[in-house]
């Protein structure tokens, strides 16, 4: 029974570079910490000769254990047993461990490796999926929910991972799609491989369904373990504090950001020059790279980072980066993780495709998420903060608790070139030397408005600080926010522009 689908099926699984369900649980959890539930559960299907078939544990292993001492509930589908197909008892086991995780307020990890619904069990199988989706939704924001895709996860089954907080995928192993290549070929005549349609890379780079990409199962498990150290066990707690550590000297905050606002740099280096031990754990590294999100620690405490990335697409906000940031902000807010926002953006990405893709609706998510978040919100304006982008990136107006700006900050409606072209249009056009006049006017505008002091004079910026003072100011602000209390108007729930 402990061998699941038997030796032959296990050999097949290994040939695909996959571990068995039990091996996966053992590799992920602390040694000897796993307690299995419902090993002896059997299916009760009678149709289609199912009565004669014995499916060990009904193709899924459930139980609880620990990761670095943190309690976790876990289920792992066993592909070696009837292709990990989901029948009535299979789903009952999963919902049992989900109920347990919610009741005990501990994180839930689901390892998905299943061919899909067990057709022989008909609507009982569909009911099972529905029961899982319902629990995913009800548990959302209460306990952390992590999905690990280590095999196929197709059709309706994909909606369980989609409802969870973080989805982990592994190259060449994970496959997720609603309709597979065969159906697409028959119905639409389009030919595509499973990997190109819904492989790990596709979901990490294009769809944004996956949050962590790994090359092997081993690397994937290391990522999960690391994530567990950064997040609390439930929404009533804060993440466990670690021993504080100074950033590494090789990340010199004074030397990262060029003064010229049109030159690129890697904002992750700025984050590494601020966080404990320069240890920054990035989330969704491969998707919408123009914004960077992830976790780090400040004085031993988990902190969420949201930063524009000037190295990629000049750090603009667009449809995908707005979705990415908004969801992460809401995650941090749900789990009591303070948010530090690093601002350096020229505005929104112009284009017909962006407008038609709904950049209004998607962009609004960022405003909504920041406004609604009640965790401590700290903002550092590194360089440019223009127009709507300035407002969206955790500005004072959306109730940031602390807003700091470096002397290189430029807080304005738009960049000097664009602004001068509009304000001094007549003068430039009527001048004998339009180019010369334009350059002069751009310089004039730069001198007057491309600085943090106009905003600071209104109190929109609390302090103008030297880059080298950033960590000290942020640590001070986090300590000062320890007991932050905010009363929001009572409501059932808001209506974020989903």
């Amino acid at each position: 029974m402990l061998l699941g689908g038997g030796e032959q099926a296990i050999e097949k699984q290994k040939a695909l570079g996959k571990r068995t369900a039990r091996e996966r649980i053992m590799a992920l959890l602390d040694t000897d910490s796993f307690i299995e539930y419902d090993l002896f559960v059997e299916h009760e299907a009678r149709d289609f000769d199912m009565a004669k078939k014995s499916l060990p544990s009904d193709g899924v292993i459930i139980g609880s254990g620990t990761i670095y001492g943190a309690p976790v509930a876990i289920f792992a589908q066993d592909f070696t047993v009837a292709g990990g197909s989901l029948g009535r008892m299979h789903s009952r086991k999963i919902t049992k461990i989900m109920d347990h995780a919610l009741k005990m307020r501990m994180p839930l990890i689901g390892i998905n490796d299943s061919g899909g619904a067990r057709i022989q069990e008909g609507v009982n199988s569909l009911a099972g999926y529905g029961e899982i989706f319902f629990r995913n939704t009800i548990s959302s924001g209460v306990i952390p929910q992590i999905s690990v895709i280590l095999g196929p996860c197709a059709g309706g089954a994909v909606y369980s991972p989609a409802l969870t907080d973080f989805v982990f995928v592994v190259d060449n192993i994970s496959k997720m799609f609603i309709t597979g290549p065969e159906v697409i070929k028959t119905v639409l005549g389009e030919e595509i491989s499973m990997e190109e349609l819904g492989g790990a890379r596709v979901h990490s780079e294009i769809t944004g369904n996956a949050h962590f990409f790994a090359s092997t199962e081993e690397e994937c498990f290391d990522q999960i373990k690391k994530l567990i150290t950064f997040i609390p066990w439930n929404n009533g707690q804060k993440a466990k504090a670690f021993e504080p550590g100074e950033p590494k000297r090789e990340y010199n905050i004074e030397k990262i950001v060029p003064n010229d606002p049109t030159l690129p740099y890697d904002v992750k280096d700025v984050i590494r020059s601020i966080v404990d031990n320069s240890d920054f754990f990035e989330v969704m590294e491969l998707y919408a790279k123009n914004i960077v999100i992830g976790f780090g620690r400040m004085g031993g405490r988990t902190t969420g980072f949201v930063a524009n990335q000037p190295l990629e697409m000049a750090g603009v906000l667009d449809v995908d980066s707005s979705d990415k940031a908004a969801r992460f902000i809401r995650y941090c807010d749900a789990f009591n993780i303070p948010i530090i926002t690093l601002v350096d953006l020229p505005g929104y990405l112009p284009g017909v495709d962006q407008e038609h893709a709904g950049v209004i609706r998607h962009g609004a998510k960022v405003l909504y998420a920041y406004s609604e978040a009640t965790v401590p919100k700290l903002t550092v304006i590194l360089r440019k903060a223009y127009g709507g982008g300035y407002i969206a990136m955790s500005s004072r107006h959306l109730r940031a608790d602390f807003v700091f700006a470096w002397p290189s900050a430029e807080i304005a409606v738009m960049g000097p070139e664009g602004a001068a072209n509009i304000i001094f249009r007549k003068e430039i056009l009527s001048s004998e030397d339009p180019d010369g006049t334009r350059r002069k006017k751009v310089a004039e505008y730069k001198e007057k408005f491309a600085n943090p002091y106009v905003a600071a004079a209104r109190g929109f910026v609390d302090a103008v600080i030297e880059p080298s003072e950033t960590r000290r100011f942020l640590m001070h602000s986090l300590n000062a926010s320890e007991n932050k209390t905010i009363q929001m108007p009572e409501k059932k729930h808001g209506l974020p522009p989903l």
Partner: protein
Amino acid sequence: MIIRKTELTELTMKKNEKIGVLNIDSSLYKTRISSRFANRIPYKPTDPHMILSFIPGTVLDILVKPGQRVRKGDGLMLLDSMKMQNQLKSTMDGKVKTILVKKGDRVSKGMVLIEVE
């Protein structure tokens, strides 16, 4: 203004040949351009002379001949797609100039199938 061009920026820019320029509000930013942005299909206003396939599928039947007069809304072609027959209609009054596909051809979405003049 002093440009503090740092070692790091120079390193990033040298290492990466893909550094391009993005124009936002007349400012030119040196940055990596995503392949998605670089490969985006530039918007073109729809041309009523070009009858496009609105769905991928197979040409089941062609209902008109070159030179034939058609009115806006007239059926031009039947496409077999999504397990259904879909009628492709003329977007203007005119004369069929050319038919670019034949019965049995597989067509993708957005392909020009018929030109009307």
